[in-house]
């Protein structure tokens, strides 16, 4: 008995140690980011950093606006493409599709989720970029190489399909059967039930799914870097090249040692990403939690 108790205590203290270690490491990471980006924050005003549009490390001008707008463009385009498709597909899978369809499609979506970003990038370079350059841009009579925010947005849209679909399917499943039955028995068509009952009931959950998708899109680095063109200017149209924040970090890290404040600037970019994604996660978690409590 004593030995069993001893083993129990040993495991307990061992796991507490591991847990504390993990928590400390992760908090240390955050503090490290903060400390590293402090020199830049002390040297320049926060508003100048976020709203300045000139990026020239040699002259110590660190305006993050091109990169922030680059990220926003790409994420925005991805959302415009992915949100309607995902909502429609999720509704079809839950409301119309039978079990066999779900069993066919959901594993496919799991595979899509498992594909590494670099393969999305390869696909983007091989297919999306030429398609945008040769077919879509000429339609609008624009000259474009194809390396543009639109390509980035399309690749990102496909990348956020899996997470949005899987959360949306879960959310739509929670809509009570009674509500649907009541609406159908009043003579509404299935589509009317969907738009006027199901979507209304599930809108907060769908919003949470979208926010999760946004946070995924925000941090995506390599796939976007490969197709976006990486020109540090503010993109003015769909066919302009952009330069999202994560791509900035990935491209310039390692060569910033010679210029003072440069590494601090890149750390600030990482910190900014960290904070944005933290905020997205908190909001979507709060929404989902509220939904769970209401059930």
């Amino acid at each position, binding site marked *: 008995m004593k030995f069993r108790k001893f083993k129990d205590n040993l495991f307990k203290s061992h796991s507490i140690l591991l*847990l504390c270690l993990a*928590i400390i490491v992760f908090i240390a990471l955050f503090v490290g980011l903060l400390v590293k980006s402090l020199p830049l924050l002390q040297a320049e005003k926060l508003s100048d950093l976020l709203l300045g549009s000139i990026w020239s490390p040699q002259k110590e001008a660190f305006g993050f606006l091109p990169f922030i707008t680059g990220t926003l463009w790409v994420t925005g385009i991805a959302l415009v493409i992915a949100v309607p498709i995902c909502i429609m597909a999720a509704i079809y899978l839950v409301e119309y599709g039978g079990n066999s369809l779900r069993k066919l499609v959901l594993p496919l979506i799991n595979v899509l989720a498992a594909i590494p970003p670099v393969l999305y990038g390869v*696909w983007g370079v091989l297919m999306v970029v030429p398609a945008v350059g040769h077919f879509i841009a000429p339609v609008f009579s624009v000259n474009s190489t194809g390396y543009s925010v639109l390509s980035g947005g399309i690749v990102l849209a496909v990348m956020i399909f899996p997470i949005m679909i899987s959360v949306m399917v879960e959310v739509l499943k929670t809509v009570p059967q009674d509500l649907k039955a009541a609406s159908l028995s009043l003579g509404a068509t299935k589509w009317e039930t969907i738009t006027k009952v199901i979507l209304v009931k599930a809108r907060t959950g769908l919003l949470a799914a979208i926010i999760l998708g946004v946070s995924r899109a925000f941090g995506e680095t*390599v796939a976007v870097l490969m197709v976006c063109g990486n020109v540090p200017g503010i993109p003015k149209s769909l066919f302009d090249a952009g330069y999202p924040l994560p791509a900035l970090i990935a491209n310039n890290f390692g060569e910033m040692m010679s210029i003072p404040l440069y590494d601090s600037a890149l750390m600030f970019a990482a910190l900014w990403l*960290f904070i944005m994604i933290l905020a997205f996660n908190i909001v979507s978690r709060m929404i989902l939690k509220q939904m769970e409590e209401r059930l």
Partner: protein
Amino acid sequence: MSTAKRLRKEKIAKWIMRLSVLVISSSLLLIIGTVLCKGLPYLSWEMISQSPKGGFYIGKEGGVLNAIAGSLYLATASTILATCIGVPIAIYLHVYTRPTSLLKRFSKFLFDVLFGMPSIVYGAIAFSIMIWLGIRASLLGGIITVTLLTLPIVVRTISELLHTVPSDLQQITTSLGATKLEVAKILVLYIKPGLFTATLLAFGRAVGDVAGVLLTTGFTDNMPLYIDEPAATLPLAIFFQLTSPIPEVQGRAYASGLLLTLIILIVVICTNLLASKQKKHKL
């Protein structure tokens, strides 16, 4: 609105929805198909069995064995580490703490947030810590970074699995006088297939990650032999070869992409097999 019009609307909506499902499913086939079409002609035994020789990057002979080995070492080591650290944490949080405890809620939140953190952030921090400590880019640095990256995946997946265990099981075992560790053992037996699923998920993520290893692991043409030396990884090999203007080298990038796809597909298929086993186990 007339009934005919309403029904027509219903029909149109249904077609749009069918189309959406089709778009999503076909995007997967498109991606895999593109990589397959472009990669297959360049795939050869030489690609898999040799490391790069002189002039590899201007289209001369050699293969990406070093990158394959590097990726597998890196992913295996960090998955083992993440499992060894993550499983006890998940069990502790489920068995030992009360549902209302602050520690439990805080760590759940923490791991949720970290789950969504992009790997470039991990990579950037790890890189600056390594500079601060005076360590150069190495396999070890990559392993540590990727472990941090996969730890939240392991903890979260296992916590969710533990939640699916009927609470009766835990209560009955406790009432028979088992210590908490013995309860935990029973629970682990119950979720065993799922445990492997979690590990495989982490492995898949570790193999495919680029942004985290870009800065911390470095790149080299040699086979990875020592843990304190830089090592090549498959995603990075794809990334670098793709930027080359020489068609032969680009072709190798596609072939490497195909290899990576194969590894991922194997992992996913194993995961699905185990997951279906878990379902049978439950009934």
